[in-house]
């Protein structure tokens, strides 16, 4: 019981949370909690989510502690471990078609769209997480991608493959140009400027109906051909999306680790200081807008190809918000967070609807707000933090208590688990 009293709940909150949440999750079906109006049905899923998060935190801690001796001994091992981690993630997505049916609410098509979301979110991570520019306009670049495909199909019978090359180019250039006025704006003004971009897409697409098909949209069902060797279009597009996503992730990781990333972070943290140190702030800002735009454009074209339909009303401000939310949930200042973010935005709404058809957004909003308290650096940010915490000597007991215990025992600075 002394352990319970001196346990550092603040730093190690995931242990007791797992026990508590796990208990609730297991016991709830036996009780009548679900019958409580309005909130009853939320209890079990909430407990499940909490348990899942604590479990992943503990898994990270265990992994960190177990691998610590190995990692401390050689930096090569650390690198190997990182590559092993990537290999695991890649394998997960590579073999997805084999087990996607077993995941609830999932299908190959949905997973493909989730990966497309991830592509957009990686762009946001670079732009907002590392660059510090909040953009509510990514849906506009997504729309450029979708309409590159749609207009190309409609006007010139352009084979869809070309749109995958042209869309990121167009969207990237658009992003780069948007970056110019964005230089002048800070904070809420930048948010409005990018928001304006998102708002204007729908009316413009409707106005130029000669090219875009107007409100009816462009239907491409059955007209998008796949190479002769592939019989399953779902699978083909899944792998195409996955490979392109991998490319995007690698590119983004390289950007982040290189000089570009360092410049971005410098700009984000203190623009004036960065400028004073010779960073070409304007160029970097415009370029990162361009990159984020290009990624979103690519994802938009892929989305159009997979859904085989584009229409003006599906590219709305709400879509921009969903991208941003996904990025933040995953961890906006990480690259891998995009994976979590994409999966979250694709699958969580289905789960919330199955809990409560009348107010699913309220549940999602609640999740969002709670995340901002508990895990404001996102899931991946949190896990990275936890890993570093475990690796640098985690503390099971409160420092004051440990010292008190040591004083009582008469021995100075008893190590135990306490290394403040």
């Amino acid at each position, binding site marked *: 019981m002394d352990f319970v009293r001196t346990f550092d709940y603040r730093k190690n909150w995931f242990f007791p949370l797992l026990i508590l949440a796990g208990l609730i999750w297991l016991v709830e079906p036996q009780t009548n909690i679900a019958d409580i109006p309005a909130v009853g049905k939320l209890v079990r899923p909430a407990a499940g989510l909490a348990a899942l998060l604590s479990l992943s935190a503990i898994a990270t801690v265990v992994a960190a502690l177990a691998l610590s001796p190995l990692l401390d001994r050689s930096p090569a091992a650390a690198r190997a471990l990182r590559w092993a981690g990537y290999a695991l993630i890649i394998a997960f997505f590579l073999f997805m078609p084999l087990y996607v049916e077993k995941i609830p609410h999932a299908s190959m098509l949905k997973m493909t769209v989730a990966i497309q979301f991830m592509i957009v979110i990686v762009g946001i991570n670079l732009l907002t997480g590392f660059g510090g520019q909040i953009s509510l306009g990514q849906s506009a670049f997504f729309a450029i991608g979708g309409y590159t495909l749609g207009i190309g199909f409609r006007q010139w019978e352009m084979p869809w493959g070309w749109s995958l090359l042209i869309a990121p180019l167009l969207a990237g250039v658009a992003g780069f140009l948007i970056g110019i006025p964005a230089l002048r704006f800070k904070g809420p003004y930048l948010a*409005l400027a990018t928001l*304006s971009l998102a708002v*204007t897409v729908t009316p413009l697409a409707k106005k130029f109906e000669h090219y875009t098909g107007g409100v009816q949209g462009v239907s491409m069902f059955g007209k998008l051909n796949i190479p002769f060797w592939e019989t399953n279009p779902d699978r083909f597009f899944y792998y195409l999306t996955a490979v392109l996503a991998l490319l995007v992730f690698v590119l983004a990781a390289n950007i982040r680790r290189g000089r570009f990333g360092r410049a971005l972070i410098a700009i984000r943290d203190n623009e004036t200081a960065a400028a004073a140190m010779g960073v070409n702030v304007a160029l970097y800002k415009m370029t990162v807008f361009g990159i984020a735009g290009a990624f979103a454009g690519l994802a938009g074209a892929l989305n159009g190809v997979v859904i085989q339909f584009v229409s003006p009303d599906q590219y709305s401000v709400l879509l921009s918000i969903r991208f941003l939310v996904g990025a933040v949930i995953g961890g906006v200042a990480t690259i891998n967070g995009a994976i979590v973010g994409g999966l979250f935005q694709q699958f969580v709404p289905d789960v919330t609807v199955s809990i409560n058809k009348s107010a699913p957004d309220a549940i999602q909003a609640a999740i969002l707000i709670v995340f901002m308290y508990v895990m404001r650096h996102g899931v991946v940010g949190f896990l990275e933090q936890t890993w570093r915490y475990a690796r640098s000597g985690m503390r099971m007991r409160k420092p004051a208590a440990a010292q008190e215990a040591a004083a009582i025992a008469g021995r100075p600075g008893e190590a135990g688990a306490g290394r403040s």
Partner: protein
Amino acid sequence: MTEFIQLVLAGTANGCIYGLLALALVLIYRSTHIINFGQGEMAMFSTYICWSFLNAGMGYWVAVPLTLILAFAAGLAVQRILIRPVQSAPELTIVIVTLGLYLFFNSLALWIYSGVPKPFPLPTGVRQASWQVGDIFIVPYHLFIFVVLIVLMLALYVLFQRTKLGLGLRAAAAQPVSSRLVGINVGWMLALGWGIAAAAGALAGILSAPIVQLEPNFMATVLIFSFASATLGGFDSPPGAVVGGIALGNIVALGGRYIEFIGTQLDIVLALVVIVAVLLVRPAGLFGRQAVQRV
């Protein structure tokens, strides 16, 4: 000519609606430096609360002040409970929390009140029928809103520029640490800012409802316009919000009519292009103050 004047009146009336909510946005920004994306939905929810009172038989001039007081309290509560823990977090975190508020209140209102629009009355005492001056028709209620808007704007201006409380609010937002050192209770200043903004938002909703019609999305549509108005006028300037709103309403109304190519399809695009153009020249908005940043 008649058409032009009539359109200006319509545009100005719309502009006043945008300006009302924009004032609430400016209020929050000035006192906490936060953009509250949930402002519209909180205003909408307060309006529904007012509707419940009116539906239960309460008189207009009793229900409205009561709602404003409740909204004030709710704003305070939201700041203390939800915003304070993330006050020192990066800007993005707070943006997400306010977006969460937006989603939450929107969904909640739809659930409780259903999507069917509900009738919302004019203030008792305000004449319903239009005044006719030659061929021009003036709506008394629009004039009423205009007057309230100006009064509110002046009140806020006076509050911020001429009262000690206002000074405290501004100081707490700009320099929390220094403010604490001189004895300002920063925590309560911020909460107060939210409370007043929530009340202003509720007022905006209550006044807009007879024109826009009360349904769960009615303030969401106004929000984007209000956001644009505040940006145009300057996010830290109450007169800016009003001027921005009225300007925006008129650009949309007149541009939609007189520019063939724009028409009613692209009127919002025109407005946003104009605003962005203005911002290029004056990045802090028409009346905004350029922030000087310490390195």
